[in-house]
């Protein structure tokens, strides 16, 4: 195996593929990336057995065919530290991989390609194409609400609900929920899958902001995403995701509309003196005024008052300010709408003109 490639052409796919590779590995081959040359095509594969990512690059010249695995992080670090525009010659010689560039030469250890595991592909069922930009939006607007290490493992992921004309993403950590619905032309048969947290984050990294296509395919236990340059495969989480329709409150009558940036800054400032562990703030709502209070165990206090549109009942509620801040940063409109019923019920946050996303935050009893 031998090929020549420019630093820049190798770096982007290598970084993404190496991102999948876990840093600490008990199985040595899993910290390697698989390099394969077929004619003018180089492909790089990284996996952690749950998520597999293949990046493809077209070489300027036909290389010598072959395949081998090398330590992913080291190859990436070498590539990164070479000067811009450097050309690399990568060749397998005597069970070692030599990387030559200008006056530099590196020799890397290898493991045979036959030892590299592939993620079992189970007969694919539904395939459909959609815009990368749209898919990325659906993920970006909700992924912050995924749980991190909950015992309810299915919360450590994202629900994808695919229908004929829509894709809905849902994430919740049990305290707050985020959901986004986008239009697509989907498969005939509706389907719900849960993609694990790592798969969600890696997939989002692959997707560009341009209106180019990505093909999605669901099998019984995998999701694949194909683009021109990548093939992404992730195992699915087997479990029953909470019914989001029951979580979204429908009977709120007290509606607040506020300037999003202004509110965001108020939260950022009061957060400083909230309890650093659970970050509670108190919101006091009265006609057209929102007051926000915070205090911490050191008895320090913050108090803010901001003009809003509100003519509902006077209300006092506690919230984890981080949850509110998260929502303020994903919403993009000038104003934000918050619908409340009482101090013990969940709050609904959304863009005032509807929009494609909805956020639910549970209050806190302070």
């Amino acid at each position, binding site marked *: 195996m031998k090929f020549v490639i420019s630093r820049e052409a190798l770096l982007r796919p290598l970084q993404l593929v190496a991102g999948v590779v876990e840093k600490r590995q008990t199985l040595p081959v899993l910290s390697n990336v698989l390099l394969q040359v077929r004619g003018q095509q180089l492909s790089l594969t990284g996996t952690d057995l749950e998520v597999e990512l293949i990046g493809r690059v077209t070489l300027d010249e036909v290389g010598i065919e072959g395949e081998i695995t090398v330590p992913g992080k080291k190859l990436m670090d070498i590539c990164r530290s070479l000067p811009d525009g450097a050309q690399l010659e990568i060749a397998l010689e005597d069970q070692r991989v030599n990387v030559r560039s200008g006056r530099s030469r590196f020799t890397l250890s290898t493991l045979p390609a036959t030892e590299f595991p592939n993620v079992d592909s189970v007969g694919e069922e539904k395939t459909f194409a959609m815009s990368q930009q749209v898919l990325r939006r659906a993920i970006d607007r909700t992924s912050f609400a995924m749980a991190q290490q909950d015992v309810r493992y299915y919360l450590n992921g994202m629900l994808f609900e695919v229908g004929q004309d829509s894709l809905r993403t849902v994430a919740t950590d049990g305290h707050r929920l985020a959901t986004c619905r986008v239009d697509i032309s989907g498969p005939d048969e509706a389907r719900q899958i849960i993609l694990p947290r790592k798969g969600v984050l890696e997939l989002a990294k692959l997707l560009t902001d341009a209106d180019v296509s990505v093909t999605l395919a669901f099998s019984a236990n995998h999701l694949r995403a194909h683009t021109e340059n990548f093939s992404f495969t992730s195992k699915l989480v087997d479990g029953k995701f909470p019914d989001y329709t029951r979580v979204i409150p429908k009977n709120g009558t007290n509606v607040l509309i506020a300037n999003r940036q202004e509110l965001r800054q108020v939260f950022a400032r009061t957060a400083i003196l909230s309890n650093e562990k*659970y970050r509670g703030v108190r919101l006091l709502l009265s006609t057209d005024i929102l007051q926000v209070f915070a205090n911490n165990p050191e008895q320090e206090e913050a108090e803010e008052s901001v003009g809003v549109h509100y003519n509902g009942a006077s209300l006092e509620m506690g919230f984890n300010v981080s949850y509110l801040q998260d929502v303020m940063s994903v919403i993009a409109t000038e104003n934000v709408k918050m619908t409340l019923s009482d101090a013990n019920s969940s709050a609904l946050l959304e863009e005032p003109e509807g929009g494609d996303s909805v956020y639910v935050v*549970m209050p806190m*009893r302070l």
Partner: protein
Amino acid sequence: MSKIHLLSPRLANQIAAGEVVERPANIVKELVENALDAGARRIEVDAEQGGVKLLRVRDDGCGIEQDDLALALSRHATSKITTLDDLEAVMTMGFRGEALASISSVSRLTLTSRFEQAEQAWQVTAEGRDMQTSVAPAAHPQGTTVEVRDLFFNTPARRKFLRTEKTEFGHLEEHLKKLALSRYDVAFTLRHNNRVIHQLRVADRGIEQERRVATLLSPDFIDHAIHVDTEAAGLQLKGWVALPTYSRSQTDMQYFYVNGRAVRDKLVVHAIRQAYRDVLYNGRHPAFVLYLELDPKLVDVNVHPTKHEVRFRDGRLVHDFLFRTLHQVLGNIRPQDQLAPASSSSLTAGVDSASAVGETRGFASGAVGNSEAANGLRLQTQAEPVRGIQAGEFRGQGGLPWQSSEPKPTPAAVAEQMNSYANLIRPLDSDTVPAAMAERPVLAGTAGFASPNDSVTSGNMATAVQTNTPVAFAGVAPAMPAGSADMPPLGFAIAQLHGIYILAENRQGLVLVDMHAAHERITYERLKAAVDRESVASQPLLVPQSMSVSEAEADAAEQYAAEFRALGVELARVGPESLLVRQIPVLLQQAPVTNLITDMLGDLIEHGSSDRILAHRNELLATMACHGSVRANRRLSVAEMNALLRDMEATERSGQCNHGRPTWTQLSMAELDKLFLRGR
């Protein structure tokens, strides 16, 4: 199948013996308990070959009347209770009337006794299948001797389970220790193969009692123990608990008595562990000798054949009392309490020797009823110097002795006998206090300290000296000589060693402080106090979490709903065996909540209370404290170091870091002198 017939008396007794007599140690326990019930003031135990060949227990108690001798060896014959009511408030060690019959069925037993008013002693043995007794005249001073030879000679199967002589004697000695720790007013002697192993004099005064504890456990234990004496809600707890730094790798130094009876009780162990939780190094076990006294009606001793288990009528109250008392005792330890006085005449700050004496005298006068003779002895307490830990700890804690001075409300017969034999007390001839008691052990790790290469690095020295701003020196008090009366207990900082330790000079000598460990504890205690001031913030769950539990656990969840709510947890029962967690305390958002709740339900079912949430919260705060405390290699100015020393003196539990490691240690002048062979 053969025809039904009655078991022979011996066989019936042998079967009963299976429950009580497993090895020589059990026999010693039964015989010594009998002697104690008979009001003995002096008990001698002789053993040969681990007690298998011979066990002899001799007492100076009331003895047994000739007419009763035969009965003493038969089953269900006792002088100690008559009615069920008696059983409910039993104050004697024995009450089943079973021990002698059982023992005599599996060994060659002779009982020789002379009743108090009798002129003649008599001896009884029981032989054959029917355990026919024969009584013959004998010579014996007042009291009783029971001799047990050839244990299990007639039950070879059981003999096989006996271990080596050494092991058997070890068990036997442990049982005797337990008994000797329960009655300081009785003298004990233990001999093995004619060698004296223990000789314990009557220990009426606190200091003598401590000596007995030191002899039986270890002098180190008493040197590192805090005296406890608290009374509340009809419960009284006395005894000693070891400082958390004196912990054990096993549970081998845990003696707990309920109304004078040694017990191993889950509830008690749980309460004590909980009290130590915050200060004990992971995986270590506390050491203690504790006496709980309560109305005998509130505790059932007839739970287990060996009487090692008890059942409290109000377990929750007892648990609470034990936990609170010990938690407070451990929390109140301050550096000044652990310091040995520079000399016996100058006690550590604040210890009023007059009051210590006063309390001791108070005890002595209360004890007069027990014995005239001992009174003179007791009053000598005034001359006794109060030692280090005790000097701090006995303050305001009601004197040294553990045992209440009023005679126990024993059933009339026993009480009367005890009184009439009180005049038998006389100190034994030889003094058994080990020499080791006189000296505190030299601290470990001194070798490293003595090495000249380990001296303060110039860099750190410079830091200490550089702090020449007026503020920085504010706390140094350079004019004060070490030894001045105003010297704070941990003294003043002199330097920082390798960025890890603070060296300070105090009245006793040199103090070494692990600055991270010490600061961590201070930060931790402050965090706890701060969080305690706030109300419990709770997070209702947007997606309630379901959990499957047992039916008993689900019942407990309903029964203790109010307790859960007070802690910020809301549970709903949604089926016979399933619960829904609707709300959790915000501090535990990242915690494995369902595991925690399962554990809490377990606690509640077993002990009626649970501190899991608190423990979990404290774990979080401990982690925060660790991150929020000065790390190794942070250079501290002298003023900063002094501030830390003052904080330590004022902080609860400052002797241990959050993980139970010691935060400071003292090298006294005497210990330093020893290193340099000075003053020899």
